[in-house]
């Protein structure tokens, strides 16, 4: 995951400049999309969030039921106060609620990433009016100015 030898251009940029500058200098249309070997600084940061939360999600969703299959005794004990058998509560309430919290956390983290890279989502309405604005920006950033 850490060796980016084929795409070190962006890597060295990211070392000296701020993330926002690295973002300015990246031509996203010419960087490969690779789930296992992200090629841009933004994608690397994004995928770190994606994979971390995905692993937690998998544990929340399939963990309790697997534990119940492995150790039915301790898992089916009645919970104090609530009265649920533990496995029932973890699955019926825990898993969906956990997924909801994770979803909100992910959306927040992704907003934080946007901020780190200086991306503003409030303007695209204006960009949309002019049609090709966003497209031109991505295209010229990488090629012409350098």
């Amino acid at each position: 995951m850490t060796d980016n030898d084929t795409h070190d251009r962006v890597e060295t940029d990211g070392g000296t400049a701020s993330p926002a500058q690295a973002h300015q200098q990246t031509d996203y249309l010419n960087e490969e999309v690779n789930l296992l070997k992200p090629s841009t600084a933004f994608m690397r940061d994004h995928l770190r969030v994606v994979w971390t939360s995905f692993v937690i999600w998998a544990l929340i969703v399939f963990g309790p039921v697997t534990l119940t299959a492995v150790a039915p005794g301790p898992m089916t004990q009645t919970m104090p106060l609530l009265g649920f058998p533990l496995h029932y509560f973890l699955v019926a309430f825990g898993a969906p609620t956990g997924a909801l919290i994770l979803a909100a956390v992910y959306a927040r983290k992704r907003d934080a990433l946007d901020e780190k890279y200086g991306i503003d989502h409030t303007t695209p309405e204006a960009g949309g009016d002019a049609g090709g604005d966003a497209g031109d920006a991505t295209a010229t950033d990488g090629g012409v100015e350098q």
Partner: protein
Amino acid sequence: MMASFLVIGYVFKVADTEGMWVAGRGIGNIENGMAIGANWMSAASYLGLAGLVALSGFYGLAFIVGWTTGYFVLLIFLAAQMRRFGKYTAPDFVADRFNSPMARALAAFTTLLIAYVYSVGQARGMGLVGQYVFGLDIIPMIVVMMTITVGYLALSGMLGATKNMAVQYVILIVAFLAGVYAVGFSQGYSTILPQIEYGALFSELSRQFSEPFQASSYYLWVATAFSLIFGTCGLPHVLVRFYTVQNERTARWSTVSGLFFIMLLYWAAPAMAAFGVDLFAVVNNISPDAVYNGEQAMSGAEGDVIVVLAAQFANLPTWFVGLVAAGGMAAAIATTAGLFITASSAVAHDIYSELINPDATQRQQVLIGRATIVVVGALVTVTAFNPPALIGELVAYAFSLAGTVLFPMFFLGLWWENTNRQGALAGMTTGLLLWIGSVVNSVLPAYVGFLADIAGGPGQAIVPIYAQYVPPIGAALVGTPLVFLVTIAVSLVTPEPPLETKKMVRQCHSPEPMGQQQTAEEIVSNSGGETPADD
């Protein structure tokens, strides 16, 4: 009870014509989240879920987990990317991403199958509720309700469901939660939080309600949850909701709020099931265990309307029971209407005018579309007379198909730029064959004489080991990884897709904001000339 039905119908009608909510000028994430919730709430959520939890106990929870937690996977891998790609039906996405009319046809055929199987569950729900409210037999009831739905759609050709999904959501969730709170409160089960308070009831219920792996093995539990999770990500009617939002940030947050609005129902459904099971024993004067065994045990049909039955057992006023029933009926009709529109566009647009008759006129397409609605409607009606499973399980068959065939196309299409046409065609064919094989193997012997002869009995599967590991309801646990492997392998040994296509995929992941009406394709073709081809 009839009167409350009419009132609900009238409220829907009013909500429908209200012009102030018009979509298209950028809906916010809360309203869009409600729309996602309304799209999601079919008879399977409203009626089937509580039915499954009541009848199948712990296994029923696989449906709760599957139909909620899948949204998280959708959010982190697909929501914003799909919004950027700019195509929202499975056939459109597949055709544009893989440059292939054949892939479009396969996706359209899959969509048609999904609509058919999904609708059977809805028709069953309409029939059961209608039977309950109007006192007709189930078969005439299904025929009447389906005729009304199909007739309306085929004649008007317009979306029969309300355009205002947010209002529809509010009506449905209020009807459902009112039922849960009223039953819980009037019977002394709960006060302000029935979603948690039903825990106290477990000591009085039969052990079968909570005992793990009674109605299913661990494998079937996981296979079912897996299929529903990835089916959620492959079902186009969720993705369509990203079309109306301002930008991808709103797409992300509306997935989050959509999940919250869905969970308002999913938190409460098991509570309603627990109340219903307990009341069933009290009203029929039987022991808790006799709910599951013996002559007075709860039938599948009773389980499927447990939401309505519980309200009645609790001696709530008739109009109130009617309100709860009307919610279930409304959910079923709206979903059926939406599915039939999808099916008719898949056949008329994606199969007929793209493949069979490229010169088709508008008129011919409309005719074919209406014919599709009538034919699928008739098929659904007949199948619903004697369905192979409970409402929730029927709908789950459609999810396992979506998870097997469509999810890998969306995921690989958006996350691996080298996925090509050959890979997609091979993958989709594999997935379709695997799922159809599973249905023929496990479900059809109960209906088709000569298959039953081969299987050695109507209740038997033709190949038991295949039925055990690839059950129709959990086919995606084996199917999805298999389709991934086939698609990747075939893509690797055949030529890479054109650079234009790869750039489209890259555009979907670029953090650069896009305008609301833009698609990845437009941006790529605008910038095409200036960028050096370094691949």
